[in-house]
């Protein structure tokens, strides 16, 4: 089972991305591919960031922009055969009480200075693994996740960065 980071999904749907073929090949390969809440949020950000695309799809579907954006995100997950899973467990933290497991993970990992988005993905992948999902690979195009390689390995997850650095998001 692989945790799929958003850059792989978005590149597979971008004909101009030089790593589209590598992303598509991975997505079409055998094995369960898991996505979680940070991927949905990234997709929401990506879809809503292209005003012309979102307006066009909303008009074509006869939906509001909000309903169209939700439809587009679910379509992407379904079309690529991805499995959505949310981390459901919680951890009791001092003074805070019950805290969702990925957030508790993120608090502990924050000192690694991965950046907000990468931190969330790593925290969710680790939390999902700790909840019993047999995730053994974290797949991305973003070389910025190299800084998290050891954090992932600690929980038995191998980081796989597809392709080169040209498709990495800035930052």
């Amino acid at each position, binding site marked *: 089972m692989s945790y799929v980071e958003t850059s792989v999904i978005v590149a597979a749907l971008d004909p101009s991305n030089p790593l589209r073929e590598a992303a598509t090949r991975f997505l079409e390969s055998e094995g369960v591919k898991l996505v979680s809440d940070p991927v949905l949020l990234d997709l929401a950000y990506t879809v809503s960031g292209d005003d012309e695309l979102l307006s066009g799809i909303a008009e074509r579907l006869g939906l509001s922009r909000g309903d169209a954006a939700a439809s587009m995100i679910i379509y992407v997950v379904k079309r690529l055969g991805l499995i959505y899973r949310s981390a459901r467990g919680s951890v009791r933290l001092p003074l805070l009480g019950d805290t969702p497991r990925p957030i508790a993970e993120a608090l502990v990992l924050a000192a690694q200075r991965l*950046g907000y988005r990468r931190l969330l993905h790593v925290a969710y992948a680790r939390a999902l693994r700790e909840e019993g999902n047999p995730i053994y690979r974290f797949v991305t195009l973003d070389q910025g996740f190299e800084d998290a390689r050891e954090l992932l390995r600690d929980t038995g997850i191998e980081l796989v960065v597809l392709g080169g650095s040209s498709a990495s998001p800035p930052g």
Partner: protein
Amino acid sequence: MGKKLVTLKMDSEVLDLVDSLVGLGLFSSRSEAVKWLIRAGAAGLEPLARVARGVNKLLELERSTGSPAFWLRGGVERLPSC
């Protein structure tokens, strides 16, 4: 609007509620009460139904054209950098 006969099993707690509504005179029969409750529940699901129809239209669009319903051009560059 056509009507069809449907037989369904209900939890006894729900059936008690139905009978209470009938007993209070809000509905003339169990059938009327159940029809109203289902309509009320379905109305609450309408936002989800709209999105489900949207997803199905996108999948139909892909089937008819043989390519994705839309592209996310430049999408990787638009991912949050923080």
